[in-house]
């Protein structure tokens, strides 16, 4: 190829910029390695170029779809390339044009969802309209949260500090020095022996304790909707408090919102959650969403003995169909399954309790709270003794 390598480097930098605009994290270090990779792989074959860039710029399987689209736009479509070249001129800050907007929307979707065809980039059509994939039966709304006041935030932090989930510490296989530990630390003892006189002090270690990963599945359907703010508030504080936590929201579909809740600013976090979730205040399909969780996520997030916190009132639109098998599978793949039931419609509870009856035998802990007006109530409920009296016959 006659193109000077300088030109290629320029192109890669711009390609990386597009990826970054699409929401991927591509740092200078990765750009440098991709330039190096291309030097090795050569430019004769566009497939080689594709995989050389892919191996260096992408480090998540989910990003493949975005990369694929961007690659074909950038390196194949000559008109696009022309536009890119014009972008190389000093004023780069042109506002994102329509196809970009669309593609980054798709890209954001791709990051969130595990569509079954995610692994086959060649089948992806560029202009998939996201709204066409939703069934008519679903009520799709976006949520508008009022802003958190500083006082509320402080209150939340105080309340959360009191949160003590039962069995929330597991012994790991890693050890730490401990004066009365159960294992002898040979290395430290040896060191001490060289320093000490005739008597060698015996140094000890003990196993370290750690919080297990926490996975929260929170119902945000219509019947739960009024408390959505308190729940999200709770989940946000918890996300920033614990290191290994994954959060999923579900109504008729399952959305992984872990990434958004990591945002330290609660208002920003909540507004991005609100726009990511498309089934606020709709119906609930517990069996179906648990099934999606079991298939798409369970192996990825429950791997290290996670505690699962399931927040739902158990009112299922599908009348508990397929629910029992899925909840029992979830129970078997988690270390501990806690069900928090806000019992929002206590009066109408009995006649509709089919879902509840199916779920109860498969949870380790059942907790019910009547009126959640604050995060403190939630924390108090989770700290208290589990409700066992509600075993529906």
């Amino acid at each position, binding site marked *: 190829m006659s193109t000077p390598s300088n030109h290629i480097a320029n192109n890669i930098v711009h390609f990386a910029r597009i990826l970054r605009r699409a929401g991927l*994290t591509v*740092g200078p*270090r*990765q750009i440098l*390695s991709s330039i*190096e*990779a291309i030097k*090795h*792989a050569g430019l004769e*074959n566009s*497939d*080689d170029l*594709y*995989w*050389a860039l*892919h*191996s*260096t710029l*992408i*480090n*998540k*399987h989910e990003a*493949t779809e975005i990369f694929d689209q961007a690659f074909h736009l950038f390196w194949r479509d000559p008109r696009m390339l022309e536009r890119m070249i014009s972008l190389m001129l000093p004023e780069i800050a042109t506002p994102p044009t329509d196809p970009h907007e669309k593609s980054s929307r798709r890209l954001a979707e791709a990051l969130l969802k595990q569509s*079954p065809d995610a*692994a086959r980039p060649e089948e992806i059509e560029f202009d998939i309209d996201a709204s066409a994939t939703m069934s008519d039966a679903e009520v799709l709304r976006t949520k508008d949260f009022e802003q958190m006041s500083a006082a509320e935030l402080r209150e939340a932090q105080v309340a959360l500090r009191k949160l003590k989930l039962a069995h929330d510490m597991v012994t*790991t*296989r*890693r*050890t730490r020095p401990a004066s009365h530990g159960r294992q002898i630390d*040979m*290395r430290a*003892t*040896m060191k001490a*022996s*060289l320093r000490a006189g005739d008597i060698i002090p015996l140094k000890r270690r003990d196993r370290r304790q750690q919080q297990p*990963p926490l996975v929260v599945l929170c119902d945000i359907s219509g019947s739960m909707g009024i408390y959505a703010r308190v729940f999200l508030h709770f989940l946000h504080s918890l996300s920033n408090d614990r*290191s290994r936590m994954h959060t999923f929201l579900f109504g008729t579909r399952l959305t992984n919102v872990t990434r958004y809740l990591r945002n330290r600013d609660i208002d920003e976090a909540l507004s991005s959650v609100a726009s990511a979730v498309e089934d606020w205040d709709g119906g609930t399909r517990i069996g179906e969403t648990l099934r999606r969780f*079991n*298939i798409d996520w*369970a*192996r*990825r*997030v429950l*791997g*290290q003995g996670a505690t699962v916190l399931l927040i739902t009132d158990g009112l299922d639109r599908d009348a508990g169909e397929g629910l029992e*098998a899925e909840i029992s*599978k979830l129970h078997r793949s988690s270390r501990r399954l806690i069900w928090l039931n806000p019992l929002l419609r206590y009066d109408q509870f009995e006649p509709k309790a089919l879902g509840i009856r199916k779920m109860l035998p498969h949870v380790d802990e059942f907790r019910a709270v009547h009126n959640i007006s604050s995060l403190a109530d939630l924390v108090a409920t989770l700290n208290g003794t589990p409700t066992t009296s509600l075993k529906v016959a």
Partner: protein
Amino acid sequence: MTQNLPSSIDETADLLSRGAYVADRSLATIVFLALSMQRPLFLEGEAGVGKTEIAKVLATSLGRKLIRLQCYEGLDTAAAVYEWNYQAQMIEIRLAEAGGTQDRDQLAKDVFDDRFLIRRPLLQALEPDVNGPPVLLIDELDRTDEPFEAFLLEVLSEYQITIPEIGTIKAPEPPIVIITSNRTREIHDALKRRCLYHWVDYPDAARELEIVRLKAPDAAADLAQQVVNFVQALRSRDLYKQPGIAETLDWATALTQLNTVSLDEQAITDTLGTLLKYQDDIARVQGSEAAAILAELKSATSK
């Protein structure tokens, strides 16, 4: 016998196929880049798609030593990097004292000597080998915890390990590092960024057939084709765990052992346990679903 590193993507593909590994172009490209850029290769994918096998094949066909570090929860430096042989050190101290040695500093030097160092996989991988830098396989990294990942960062970016009592040990030439993950949790970006990333996918029908013919040569040609078609169809179903290549091979071997020449419903029901490992999946596929897939395949081939 030591082989030179391949100098092009085509040569890499040849090298892998000589080692009986059927790789597609993308994988050959990534392996070639990892070798020529001397960067660790991070392979992620479902269980049983042949991630570990790549490291083994590379080691054999390049004539390098394979050093394997199987990861598990709680893996620490004592098991992964090095450990002192305390018993031998104790004896050394006793002997020195019996011999009347008074110089403690000298004793410390003697005791923390190379002779008493037990080398674990990571340290072994940094040491020069007559056959050239070894292949270091860090298998199932997702089973360890974050502290170990953080430790790996230093090792993989500098190819050196610091032992306080001895000093820093640096590899004269970086080993060929292959890290695999089954994605039971996300590996931190910082580590991935230092590696070349590749998602190892299930193979397409043609490549899977090639693999079955190569690795299960006793299976009848018709049967191999049917097995591959069936597994490919199965992967498009909503299963908790889709069968990997390892399972396809197991299944083909099992069917061959039972002298099956052609797939039928009974044969599938009898051997499904080699292919699917979740009771829910087996219950679902057994019977009508298997028959449906079979009918589907029949109508597709008769067309």
